[in-house]
């Protein structure tokens, strides 16, 4: 021990660290409980961000353009197209169609967009969504060729030349049949098919109505989208269904609306159980140290000093367990992401601050509950009884 500048000895004989260093075996069960529970919470909560991360990745392609489709009629007519073209924020519009490509999610399935754009509009579209062809060739006009983003090919286990669609597999929700002929890269996870093929009147693909891809002038996206949303008929009813970045974000939020409540409930319940277990173990440990605390009270320590000492010991053990658990949890979810999810095209954000912050509830609640329970016992402790019992 050495004296600090204020003349106080460091480390203090009452320091929590000193206690922990000399009681590794007594602290181990508490550290282990905290670590396992924290790791469990990280491993349970982190993968839930895969819903959002993967959904957002699939939505990214659509978020970079605006999709407008008629709300009150099957297809655009000249009048509606004229009103569309009066949009002052519009740079260009392209007729397109969209189908959905089934993709695995962490639970259940999601859908990536499979977009049919005319040949002459393809390059501009791909530039806007940030995708480029890295293998194979573009869909040939009038054929069932499809180029897919690398992550979709990996996730579905395709190779170039493989076919998909309901005509190939009745369980596949994508209508018709397509053959993978190229691989795309870029941040937008989507597929491109030929617009002419997707518009053949005799094809089942014709049942899917066309929409307009609206490209806004640079910096005028909000103005353009607002114009589209505000288009109404004589009775004031919206004419268009507008899918823009805000709409997609709202839908994703909506689909995950109950998740934070569920996770909060799970975490709170787990933290409460751990806090009760911790306080029970703390009481057992306290009973084994009754002589020590009786003596400390007798020689002049205040109850609050000893409560603080025990709270620091509990907090140190709980924090140590939390840190170890965090390490185990993060390592586990990283391995899970790299080895299991990513090969299926499922994204997961690691580290995720939600489980890290939520799991802090475990050591915090443990420390508070254990300190409260021990404080009550210390307040009821009579040092004279302890001394006389041992001296008898």
């Amino acid at each position, binding site marked *: *021990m050495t004296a600090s500048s204020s003349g106080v000895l460091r480390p203090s004989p009452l320091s929590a660290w000193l206690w922990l260093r000399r009681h590794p075996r007594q602290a181990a069960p508490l550290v282990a409980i905290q670590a396992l529970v924290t790791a469990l919470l990280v491993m349970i909560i982190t993968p839930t961000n895969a819903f959002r991360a993967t959904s957002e990745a699939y939505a990214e392609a659509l978020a970079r353009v605006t999709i407008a489709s008629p709300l009150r009629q099957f297809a655009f007519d000249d009048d509606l197209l004229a009103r569309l073209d009066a949009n002052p924020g519009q740079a260009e519009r392209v007729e397109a169609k969209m189908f959905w490509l089934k993709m695995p999610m962490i639970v259940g399935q999601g859908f990536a967009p499979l977009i049919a754009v005319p040949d002459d509009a393809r390059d501009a579209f791909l530039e806007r969504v940030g995708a480029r062809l890295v293998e194979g060739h573009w869909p040939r006009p009038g054929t069932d060729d499809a180029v897919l983003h690398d992550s979709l090919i990996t996730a579905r286990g395709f190779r170039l030349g493989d076919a998909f669609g309901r005509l190939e597999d009745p369980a596949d929700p994508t209508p018709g049949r397509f053959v993978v002929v190229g691989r795309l890269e870029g941040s937008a996870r989507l597929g491109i098919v030929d617009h002419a093929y997707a518009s053949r009147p005799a094809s089942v693909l014709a049942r899917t109505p066309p929409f307009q891809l609206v490209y806004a002038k640079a910096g005028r996206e909000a103005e353009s989208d607002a114009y589209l949303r505000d288009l109404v008929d004589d009775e004031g009813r919206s004419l268009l269904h507008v899918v823009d970045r805000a709409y997609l974000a709202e839908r994703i939020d909506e689909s995950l609306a109950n998740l934070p409540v569920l996770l909060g409930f799970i975490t709170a319940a787990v933290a409460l159980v751990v806090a009760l277990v911790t306080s029970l173990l703390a009481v057992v440990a306290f009973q084994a140290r009754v002589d020590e605390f009786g003596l400390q009270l007798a020689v*002049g320590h205040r109850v609050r000093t000893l409560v603080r000492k025990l709270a620091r010991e509990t907090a140190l053990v709980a924090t140590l367990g939390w840190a170890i658990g965090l390490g185990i949890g993060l390592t586990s979810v990283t391995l899970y992401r790299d080895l299991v999810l990513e090969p299926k095209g499922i994204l997961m954000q690691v580290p995720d601050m939600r489980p890290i912050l939520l799991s802090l509830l475990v050591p915090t609640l443990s420390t508070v509950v254990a300190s409260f329970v021990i404080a009550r016992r210390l307040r009821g402790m009579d040092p004279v009884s302890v001394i006389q019992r041992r001296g008898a």
Partner: protein
Amino acid sequence: MTDAETVIEARGVGLSYRDGQRHVTALHDIDLAVARGERVALVGPSGSGKSSLLFVLGGLRRPTHGDVLLLGRSLVGGADATADVRRRHVGFLFQEPFLVPYLTVRENALAHVPTAEASERVEALAVSIGIAHLLDERPHRLSGGERQRAGLLRALAAGPDLILADEPTASLDHATGRAVLDALAAHARDAALVVATHDLSMLDAVHRVLRLADGRQTPG
């Protein structure tokens, strides 16, 4: 000795408490004043109130009536309320040394006074009572006499004005008990010492004896 030198004073102190269904009166109107440098022994049979009086003098028990003055100031309140005063001014030596098992002898002595000044005092005291080589040992490695001397080290670490010792030699053999007693007497020169004991051989080390029976002072 003048009033100014009085360290501890009990004025008409009485102590009653309930022990289950039983009402116990442990002390009846005890008057006692102990000056700095004075050594007083409390003697009497078991249950005579010796320990109770020590606990009242040290502020661990609140008297039912009467008053206790430490350095002229009333010791008001129970064990927690008087803790700061006790830590600074009172050294306790119990029959059992009550050493904290995970702390070394040095850490045990300094747990309630973790100051550089107390540390220097402990170093010097440890040399004079012959346990300097044990300062960094934990209690389980000490003999009974060494443990009691470690307890003495803790009692003296803060440089107390009042030392209260409850049967400090009861669990020691005669020679070891004598050594502890001599050390206690030698290092209590600047403090008031009140020692409760059954050991009549201790009486030649004190200036005055207060005899108790059934919680009352009895004539010597």
